[in-house]
């Protein structure tokens, strides 16, 4: 499971990073979203990967660390708000500048 988890996080990060470096606002927004998914997965794994464990300490000592779950929840909420904001901002920039380039300039070659 660790392998699958690590590969998923890595692929998400790589895709997010690639898209964030693109020149138009829509890929950048999608890239940031992917990046935040990857970060959430990463945070989640930081308490150690436990299967079939309760999120509370119990007698047999088999439990999942609850703190990363709380952190991920907070990060998801903040990430959601940020995505909403950046989408609106990208639309405003599109309507003000007349194109969707992040620098607001018309590209020289299409």
């Amino acid at each position: 499971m660790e392998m699958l988890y690590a590969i998923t996080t890595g692929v998400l990060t790589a895709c997010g990073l690639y898209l964030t470096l693109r020149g138009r606002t829509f890929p950048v927004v999608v890239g940031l979203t992917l990046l935040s998914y990857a970060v959430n997965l990463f945070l989640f794994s930081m308490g150690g990967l436990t299967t079939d464990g309760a999120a509370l300490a119990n007698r047999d000592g088999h439990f999942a660390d609850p703190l990363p779950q709380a952190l991920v929840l907070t990060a998801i909420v903040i990430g959601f708000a940020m995505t909403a904001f950046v989408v609106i901002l990208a639309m405003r920039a599109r309507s003000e500048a007349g194109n969707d380039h992040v620098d607001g300039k018309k590209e020289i070659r299409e």
Partner: protein
Amino acid sequence: MTQHLIVLPVVLPLIAGILLLYQRQGLVRYKRWVSVVATVLLLLASIALVTKAAGGEITYYALGDWQPPFGIALVLDRLSALMLLVTSILAVGAVVFACAGDDEKGSNFHGLFQWQLMGINGAFLTGDLFNLFVFFEVLLLASYALLLHGGGKARIQASVHYVVLNLAGSSLFLIAVGILYGATGTLNMADMAQRIGDLPAEREGLVTAGALMLLVVFGLKAAILPLYFWLPRAYASAPAPVAALFAVMTKVGIYAILRVYSLIFSDQAGSLSALEQPWVWWFGLATLAIAGVSVLAARDLRLLVAYLVLVSVGTLLVGIGMRTPQAVSALLYYLIHTTLITGALFLLAEMIGQQRGKTSTRLVRGRPMIQGAGLALMFFVGAIAVAGVPPFSGALGKALMLNAAEGDQRLWLWPLVLLSSLAALIALSRAGSTLFWRSHRGNASGKVLPRQQWFAVIWLMSAAPLMVIFAGPVSEYTQATAAQLADPQPLIQTLLHDAGDTP
């Protein structure tokens, strides 16, 4: 009652912000009163907190009575009290200035302003690494909206860059926090400091990676050399009161570097102690050099002031890079001065722009100003203070900084600090003579500036002479603060002694 005082700088702006949401537009007088009263109350609370912290006692406030290291604690020591005071003095100036009319150019100015204050104050007070992230997000979200206040193409373009960069920065922050949590098993900074002392050797690499990633995030906030490109445009295009408040935002990054690396990676951290020092020192010097050149190249007064912020960031960073109590004391003195004076200069640039009409703040020949004499006087005081010429506070701050350098450090620090001061002096005298002397012939026209704007600028600018007159008490306080930072043990013991041995 007094034990709840620590949470007041967070709760007060929160409540004021909620009250101010009542209507998007209208009720101008009511909103202005609420906002100004809340900010003045914040100033009073900060003064009370400084007097409380000045004795050297470290107090904490356990939110929800969850004792540290399990709950989130707000920690008050000399450094956080000082930062709160600087922020609230700046905020009073900015909010009064905004009441002259800038707040009505868009909606919800005052509410967002209060929330930004809440985020800044929370970041200064919190003793928890993840909570620091949350407060960073609070202040960033408010700052995104404030940067867009009033609209316009330049602002939207600048904020696209600002928002995207900071969102990427937030992701990096979370990764860094995750790594540090995974390696040490705690998020409380005092607890982490204790655990890092006896860390197993195989986890040292992980902690180093996390710590340096955190430095990238704080560097992005503080505008360290390869990460500063968002700053000049964002600051130059922001509305004046917002730009003035932003003067403290870079200092949030400086504060975070100072706090995290002096507490967690202190001398007790073994082989991990001072791992940020070479990075901060060399990149700080490079920031200083680039900022000095950029100041000379600026063709607009607002841009010029934005690059002056960058000069101050470079100076503060090399102060951290020296990592001696003497240097920290000097940099704190310089930090108070530079925050208030650059804030005042942003406000002054707006006033000059309003009087000049169409040419605004571009450094070209424009029409004469009707209140030119008053503005020129203010500009003169501000320019002398920020460039570091006696008799004002800048000279004293830079002299303390130069004095703190030892041995080889002098070789690098002295020329760069002095040359950047010279660059600032040249650029400001050129700007001043263009703005005030090289004007077109003809009658001065334009509107008389409102009283609130004059009050705000004089309020902030008076820091320049006052910090020289009261240099004794101020530098005593900063020295005590530096001594407290150099020895984090009392803080760790205060926070953790109640909780007993942690599992």
